């Protein structure tokens, strides 16, 4: 079942993708990482687990999501633009794929609790959802700053039966929520699984989360071949931690498609080019001279992460994928443009990928190219923020 992603390669036995990855966690957590690796390896080799995973994703999660062709925007850009519609998945983004996988694994490991970190709340809501479905206890760690900015998502998680734990350490945002979740995991590892939200953290998370997300790449590959009779020339995805990108790239890595990851300009770990260790992994990080981690800053909460999944650092190093950036203003423009031309309001995260495509159509992307964009989530979560920004700029009253 994992065959289509083999071409992106599994990590080494210690969890390395080339020079990136590994397992940099305090000793109390090492046994949990090893246990998880064994449990996932076993589950992922078990057709019954795949069957259950795929069945929950289809009967509950809304898979497969369609690939939509953008007729009007394609014409304007002179390319053929397709969207993989993860915005139509339950809870509004690709995040559901990963949490269903991890929640099923939690049960399989005989654990009864799940903890998760969240920034703006997408992964938190998804985790709370999966936990509710499977009857697991769930606590979500969320920076106090974010609990205030995203009070409605806090309420959503609580509606879903999860506890939301405001994190008051450090910058009180996503990075600190990860720290706090890890600290809690140290203390409660016996009955608790840490459901990490992206292809980051210590081995086996980057690998496991990619595998859980690979379903979207597999689907998209088949759908593109049906629509285009071929793979697309470009596969483009936004990159925060990198899970949606890893998922879609995995479906095309062994093809001629060019893989492009787009980071937020203010959270561009790959562009910063400085390797380091954070949250249990060796990867590229935003950091200062001394090695203190910098906060990321962008319009999009889901891309506000100072690191990036280690496999992306590796794909960048080997050249198999290319990483670009998009700034806040062009992202806002892209969001508005797709809404108007195609009737799809994208989340701010995939609007980064779209902004790059709009910029490069007819330049780096030759006219006539076929381009697949991973529409990783819907914009409903962002409209209040976008409205405020446009109002502040005098572009909307």
């Amino acid at each position, binding site marked *: 079942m994992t065959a289509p992603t083999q071409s992106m390669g599994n990590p080494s036995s*210690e969890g390395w993708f080339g020079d990136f990855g*590994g*397992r*940099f*966690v*305090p*000793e*109390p*957590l*090492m*046994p*949990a990482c090893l246990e998880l690796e064994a449990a996932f390896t076993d589950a992922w080799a078990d057709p019954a687990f795949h069957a259950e995973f795929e069945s929950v994703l289809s009967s509950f999660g809304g898979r497969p999501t369609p690939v939509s062709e953008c007729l009007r925007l394609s014409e304007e850009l002179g390319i053929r633009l397709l969207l993989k519609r993860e915005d139509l998945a339950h809870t509004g983004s690709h995040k559901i794929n990963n949490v269903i996988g991890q929640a099923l694994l939690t049960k399989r490991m005989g654990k009864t609790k799940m903890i998760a970190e969240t920034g703006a709340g997408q992964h938190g809501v998804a985790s709370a959802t999966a936990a509710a479905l499977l009857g697991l206890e769930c606590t979500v760690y969320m920076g106090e700053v974010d609990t205030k900015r995203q009070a409605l998502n806090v309420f959503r998680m609580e509606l879903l039966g999860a506890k939301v734990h405001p994190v008051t*350490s*450090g910058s009180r945002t996503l*990075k*600190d929520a990860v*720290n706090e979740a*890890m*600290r809690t995991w*140290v*203390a*409660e*590892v*016996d009955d608790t699984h840490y459901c990490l939200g992206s292809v980051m953290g210590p081995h086996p998370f980057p690998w496991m989360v990619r595998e859980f997300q690979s379903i979207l790449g597999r689907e998209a590959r088949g759908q593109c071949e049906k629509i285009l009779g071929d793979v697309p020339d470009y596969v483009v995805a936004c990159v925060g931690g990198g899970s949606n990108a890893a998922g879609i790239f995995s479906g095309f890595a062994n093809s001629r498609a060019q893989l492009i990851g787009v980071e937020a300009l203010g959270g561009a770990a790959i562009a910063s080019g*400085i*390797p*380091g*260790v*954070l*949250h*249990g992994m*060796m990867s590229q*990080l935003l*950091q200062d*001279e*001394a*090695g*203190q*981690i910098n906060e990321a800053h962008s319009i999009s909460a889901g891309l506000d992460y100072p690191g990036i999944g280690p496999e992306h650092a590796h794909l960048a190093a080997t050249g198999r994928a290319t990483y670009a950036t998009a700034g806040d203003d062009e992202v806002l423009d892209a969001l508005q443009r797709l809404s108007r031309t195609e009737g799809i309001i994208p989340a701010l995260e995939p609007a980064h990928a779209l902004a790059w495509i709009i910029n490069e159509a007819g330049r780096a992307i030759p006219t006539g190219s076929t381009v697949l964009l991973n529409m990783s989530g819907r914009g409903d979560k962002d409209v209040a923020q976008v409205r405020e920004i446009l109002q502040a700029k005098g572009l909307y009253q």
Partner: protein
Amino acid sequence: MSRPHLETHLRAKVASGGKLLVPYLMAGQSDDWLDTVQALAEAGADAIEIGLPFSDPIMDGPVIQQAAVVALERGTTPESALRELATLDLDIPLVVMTYYNLIFRAGHDRFAGRLAEVGVSGCILPDLSLEEMDDWGRAASAAGVDTVLLVAPSTSVERAQMICDRSRGFLYAVGRMGVTGERAEISHQVAEVVEKVKPLTTLPVCVGVGVSNPAQAAQVTGLADGAVVGSALVRRLLEGAGPEGAASFIASLRHAIDQRG
């Protein structure tokens, strides 16, 4: 600056029937932190752990996190801390405790060399796992710096054996599953983890994480070779105890430990 070497010093103390007391404080957490180090040494510490503040300390509880924030806000960097440590005149060894990224960023050899230069003979990096420590381990050995490793209640015996084999200076036995911080009670896990590792190593075994007061220090040193005391001291310093307050707290621990011994 030519201070005793960590492992040699601790083994000698243990061999003579003594129990070890290792206080922890955060470099740069106050103006007089160097005076505090000095005062701790005089109050009966066998070695001192110096925290180098890191932005994302995943093994630490709220008190030590807070000390790191204060230290970073005061402009403390690994280099500024080491430079200041170099000025001290002590007759006990110093151990640096920090997170791996600061070392990776500085470069293994450079950092190990700097530790040796400033008279630090040990290093604890809680997020540098056994699996990932080879490069640093080589650099540290080459510079004569001991790398103290952690064993946790969750560590299997097989794994504990490997850790004991690689640890230098002493063995840091994590006294319970959880991050640093004071606790009302000593966990039953302390006895278990000490029993697990004692047959595996001749290194001194010090218990850390959760040791909060004289009685607990005495209790823990009844089981193991020594106690590491972090949050309880750091909290007092954050509350303004100053070098004297720190010294009198550590003296009270020393007294409780030695009474029992």
